[in-house]
């Protein structure tokens, strides 16, 4: 279906995403940071829908918001946060870091503005109804090897996580 009120929703969701991002890096309490990150992720999922990527949006919700962030919350509850709340939140290099990152951002904007002409104006027609099937075709066809490697990565990650987190092997 055709997205409605694109401009409004873009600015709404973009604003929420940036707000969430800012909250992530400024909150003292890690749980609040995580919740802010969830806000960002959900806003991005909305933006993905607007970009004709419903499958990625669904995966974003089920995997990021429903899976990874629960893991984060879990770990935050395991490591006591009272102590770290009272400590200094930013390291001694924070000013340098901030400046460097802002320089990077400025650089990005500059590059985009400079290279704006390089993007094709015509958009590809993305069949929304066949989105999942299209991704599946690529995943199990063109990117099959990559897909297998990704599964291997997940296996290694499972083993690694167990080895790291277990008290005694």
């Amino acid at each position, binding site marked *: 279906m055709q997205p409605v009120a694109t401009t409004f929703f873009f600015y709404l969701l973009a604003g929420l995403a940036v707000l969430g991002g800012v909250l992530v890096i400024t909150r003292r309490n890690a749980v609040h940071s995580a919740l802010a990150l969830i806000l960002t992720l959900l806003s991005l999922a909305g933006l993905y829908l607007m970009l004709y990527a419903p499958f990625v949006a669904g995966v974003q919700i089920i995997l990021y918001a429903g899976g990874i962030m629960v893991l984060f919350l879990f770990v935050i509850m395991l490591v006591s946060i009272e102590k770290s709340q009272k400590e200094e939140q930013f390291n001694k290099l924070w000013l340098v870091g901030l400046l*460097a990152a802002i320089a990077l951002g400025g650089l990005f904007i500059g590059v985009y503005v400079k290279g704006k002409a390089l993007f094709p104006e015509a958009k590809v027609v993305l069949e929304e109804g066949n989105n999942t099937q299209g991704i599946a075709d690529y995943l199990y066809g063109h990117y099959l090897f990559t897909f297998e490697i990704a599964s291997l990565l997940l296996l290694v990650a499972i083993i690694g996580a167990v080895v790291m987190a277990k008290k005694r092997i």
Partner: protein
Amino acid sequence: MFFLDHIWLIPLFPAFGAAVMFFFGRKLQKQTVSIVCVGMVALSFLWACGAVWQYQGWAEANHHQPFQKVMFTWLGTDTGHMNYTTHDGTLAPFQADAGFLLDPLSAIWLLFVTGVGLLIHIYSTGYMAHEGGYYRFFGYLNLFMFSMLTLIMGNNYALMFVGWEGVGLCSYLLIGFYFHRPAASAAANKAFIVNRIGDAGFLLGMFTIAWYFGSLRYVDVNLLARSGHFNIGDPIITAATLLLFVGACGKSAQLPLYVWLPDAMEGPTPVSALIHAATMVTAGVYMVARSNALFVLAPTSMKTVAIVGALTAIFAASIGLVQNDIKRVLAYSTVSQLGYMFLALGVGAFAAGVFHVFTHAFFKALLFLGAGSVIHAMSGEQDMRNMGHLAKKIPTTYRTILIATLAIAGIPPFAGFFSKDEILWQTWSSEGGAYRILWLVGFITALMTAFYMFRLVFLTFYGKPRMDHEVEHHIHESPKSMTVPLVVLAVCAVCAGWLGWPHSLGGSNRFEHYLDPVFAREAQVFQEEGKEAQLVAGEKEEKHTNPLEYGLMFLSVAAAGVGFGLARRYYAAADKGYAEPIEQAAPPVYRTLQNKYYVDEAYDYVFTGRRKIGDVRLGAMGLGEASSWVDAKVIDGTVNGAGRITRLSGKISSWWDKWIIDGLLVNGLALITHPLSWFARLLQWGLVQWYALVMVVGLVGFVAYYAWR
């Protein structure tokens, strides 16, 4: 053939009883304990009777071969992995079976061990009824039965050694049964340690046999020994037999290793009767008899056995003359009688020795059990000086002890007469004048035996009562469970000797004929080779039926009579503070005898190291201490001196290494490098976020460069 085929069950019955006691004994009732343990021994006895009975039939059909039942190979393999080289360079597999052998010799032992053992078990249920550790006692007794049966039924020396050690262990455990008494525990240790000397001899002898004959089985060894390949007087066989005899000395309490047996009387009286009189101490005799084929090949060993036996007999008997403890008198009597047995073996009268073992088992067990009954009646009093006038009060005990005394003193027709007379006659009739001296020794011993045994009877049952009033009031006859075995043993003590009624008195000496398959073949060998031999037992007797034998017989009976007369004269009316005749006649002799010739003290000085002069320890231990001092002061001092010099040089070298090499050359360089490397350190600061920052700065730089190039 059922019993014969399952002969292996005979030792396993008491083993089962012992196992039950070991695992569950603590929780069982006394009655259950009695039923299990006595029942197991009774089963063994019945099984043994059945097996011996069936063996008769089997032997008739098989040329009087020994019956063997091999269960499995216990030590060694059939694969040749455990071969060893014998003296002539051939390989022999090291193999010891868990196998059982039944022939007339082991049959006799089997019967009287299980029989007397059963009676003593029954007796113990009465004697131990009020003691603590009831299940422990019966568990040990059953374990002893198992070990003893293994010893006599094994078909090789290794299995015999298992039983040998097993009975040693049980002896230790039972002597120390009252382990809270220091004397008992010391006696147990003494028995165990002294036996260890003998066991070492046995082991060496066993190894020698294995090395020389290539096998440990009796059958193989006997076959080789009788094959005629070996000369009489073969030095190796002499050595082997002497070593075996050392083992026998230890187990059967011969000079000089007899010292443990009198002390072993610290154990409960049934134990003294079973282990230290009737069965275990005859293991040495059994072993020598079992090795007869070897011993006849070594005349030197035979002489040694005979002389040691005779000396032990008179030595122990003389000590027994003056002992006052009723059990000690019997203990020395046992040592003395064992000496008789070895005397018989030593002069080649194997059958006579075995016969004496057989009769002795009954009357000595009876004496000990009777003594136990007396002690029971006297509320634990063992000193004969405090007894007297008991004949009327405990009549059954009195009568049975009297029968046993008559038997041991050699009064016809009691059992001891036949066996002892046989030994003395065989000694007299052996070749050579020296053996006549041995006969004289035996004769004097018989006189002494009669004297001290009747002394025991008179002091205990006649004369005036010398005990406390309190004790006198409590005297009572023992319960049925104790008296019935006494009566049964008394009947045996009368009748057992009739099995060996000699030809000279119109008998047929069935006992010796029964043993012919084991011993007679030796006689054959000697006769055929025509060599000078000290015996030709079976044949000789029939030839020498001459008046001299009757004379000797009369002499020994007369000696018994003289002993009786002397004892009656001095002790029949003994009252408190009665006089010892020997003390009055020759006080130094009395003191020497009273102190057992100071043998224990001598051992203390020479071996145990318990005696000191000043700070210097005497004897073998003293020698050890001296060499220890030399080792500690001289040798170690030298070593330590060398060590100190090394340490000093090490310190110097270490100082050089630390300050010059490390300090100046290594650390010095590092100290210079440290400030110089500050810039390089910025790249590897150890702070992760610093790395990220560097990355971002680099990224900015690169992107900027490529964007606005």
